[in-house]
């Protein structure tokens, strides 16, 4: 994928590729299909009147591979859209923020997980500024605790296991 991307970053794709987006899309699907097929290959296929667990995953992966191949070929043969530019900032901070949330919610609770995830996530924006993001994250965490814990009584940990010793009540 990566070397392919570098090719299409140029404004003019080399003559062979008519639509770098479709080529990339096809390769992406083929990779997924191969991975799924590899994972499912051990499963018994069975027969048509007594299908095994592997029949459907394997055949779907095969179909998906064919679809991906067709798409990749169309990327070579038919003129179409070029690959869009991929940004790193958005995915890193947004998905990073979510991962932080999942790591912190049990251990430290919402009081920590909320602000940390939100401040980290806020950095995905070009207009990020520390003060605003921090104040906003703290206020919103308060609202979330009030809404989800106090009003709706969801079993979401507000103070996690690691912090409990500091809050004896």
């Amino acid at each position, binding site marked *: 994928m990566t070397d392919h991307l570098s090719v299409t970053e140029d404004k003019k794709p080399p003559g062979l590729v008519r639509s770098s987006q479709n080529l990339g899309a096809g390769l992406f699907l083929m990779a997924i299909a191969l991975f799924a097929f590899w994972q499912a290959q051990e499963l018994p296929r069975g027969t048509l009147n007594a299908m095994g667990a592997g029949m*459907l995953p394997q055949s779907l992966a095969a179909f998906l591979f064919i679809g991906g191949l067709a798409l990749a070929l*169309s990327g070579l043969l038919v003129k179409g859209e070029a690959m869009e530019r991929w940004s790193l900032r958005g995915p890193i901070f947004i998905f990073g923020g979510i991962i932080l949330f999942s790591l912190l919610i049990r251990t430290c609770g919402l009081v920590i997980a909320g602000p940390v995830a939100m401040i980290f996530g806020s950095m995905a924006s070009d207009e990020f500024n520390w003060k605003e993001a921090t104040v906003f994250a703290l206020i919103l965490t308060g609202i*979330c605790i009030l809404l*989800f814990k106090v009003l709706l009584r*969801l079993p979401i940990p507000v103070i996690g296991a690691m912090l409990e010793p500091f809050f004896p009540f």
Partner: protein
Amino acid sequence: MEAFLGNLSLGFGVALTLNNIFLCFIGCMVGTLIGVLPGVGPIATIAMLLPITFGFDPTGALIMLAGIYYGAQYGGSTTAILVNIPGEATSVVTVLDGHQMAKQGRAGVALGMAAIGSFFAGTVATLLIAALGQPLTKLAQLFGPAEYFSLMIMGLVFAVVLARGSILKAICMILMGLLLATVGTDLETGQERLTLGIQDLSDGVDFAVLAMGIFGFAEIVRNLENPETRDVVRAAIGRLWPGKDDFRQSYFPILRGTIVGAVLGILPGNGAVLGPFASYTIEKKIAKDARRFGRGAIEGVAGPEAANNAGAQTAFIPLLTLGIPPNAVMALMVGAMTIHGIIPGPQVMTKNPELFWGMIASMWLGNLMLLVINLPLIGLWVKLLQVPYRLMFPAIMIFCCIGIYSINNSTSDVLFTAFFGLVGYSLLKLGFEPAPMLLGFVLGKLMEEKLRQALILSRGSFATFVERPVSGVLLGVAVIMLLIALVPSVRKGRDVVFTE
């Protein structure tokens, strides 16, 4: 007729208790509140708000959920009119004339007419569900596994035909959805499939997790990339109640929109998205002066909004009578119902009549609520829409995280959501439309089950799908639809419809 009225009165008896009215009100309110946020469509809204229904009994929870659903739908229209951003595919059309009206200082009238049109459409569609529910359930009992399978194939073909962009890509998305649905323990043999040895995947991928990743988080990243062009209306909102002339111009568009939307909504495979487009096209075709469209013609708001709401409501019909969710939003409703111990399908109506009719009555109640509570709150929505995205997206993010965590109290669900968000972002970048994938995923398990059953009954012969008359007709319709969509001239027309 008597049964029809009896059922409706049973339903209203359930829905009109003080408790349930309150739940419906809260549902509509928060549904709109979240649904109004730009970039948050009904799917993300419902997934986010699902946990708040957990504390109530099944009937109350479903009534609240119905409220959330309509609130989310109407919230999308509000955003479409007030800001130049369609919340979802179905309000794309509303943007065209609705936002123009808003710029001319007639936002209030546009919103008012949208609400009135939606209410009328909702009323008709509620009656339609009540009338069609029973006969269709009877029909469903005649369906064997082969018929079910073929019906779902037809639904998927519709989804392909109705998807935007390349047909090949849409087919690939369906296949990927079906493949994702096979993850987890095989129902018949108990073997783990494609779980990569991860314990949490043995129950399969949770639909809310997939939907939230792809429609919630991927969308945030996508929005951050495109510098904001939010065009919140600065003109006065104006009065809400449309004038005599507005009504005169809107009667027939609402009526036509309702019929078109209701009929398309029943089709499996997300026919509802087509309703507003169809309605807009019709109004434009028969208008005396088609140039008014796109410049703030009220018919261009009233008709499509009615169609939108009628479709949103009749989309419940395949779900409640056949147990087949026709689109991703309905699939989420299936998930919600399952959490409350109800498996949607023909048996709900017979085993749980209070719940079934109560929910149908509450749909109508939800529509009424929207009319009553939302119009006075427009000022609040406008304020909310002025919040800059840099503050809005961390809030959306944290609500999504809390929502997903609370569904199963599981941290790994939150991680999976991040993963699917990344997948969704990649798909968007590669020019795929993810909606058909979700439909494939939703129908996957049921399709596999029916396929296996049908093949056992036919001793492994695929001919059964063609030989059984009903199944054969359904497959025939699917093939014809696909072929028509591939005809070059139709393809062009399809592109025009979607880009207009």
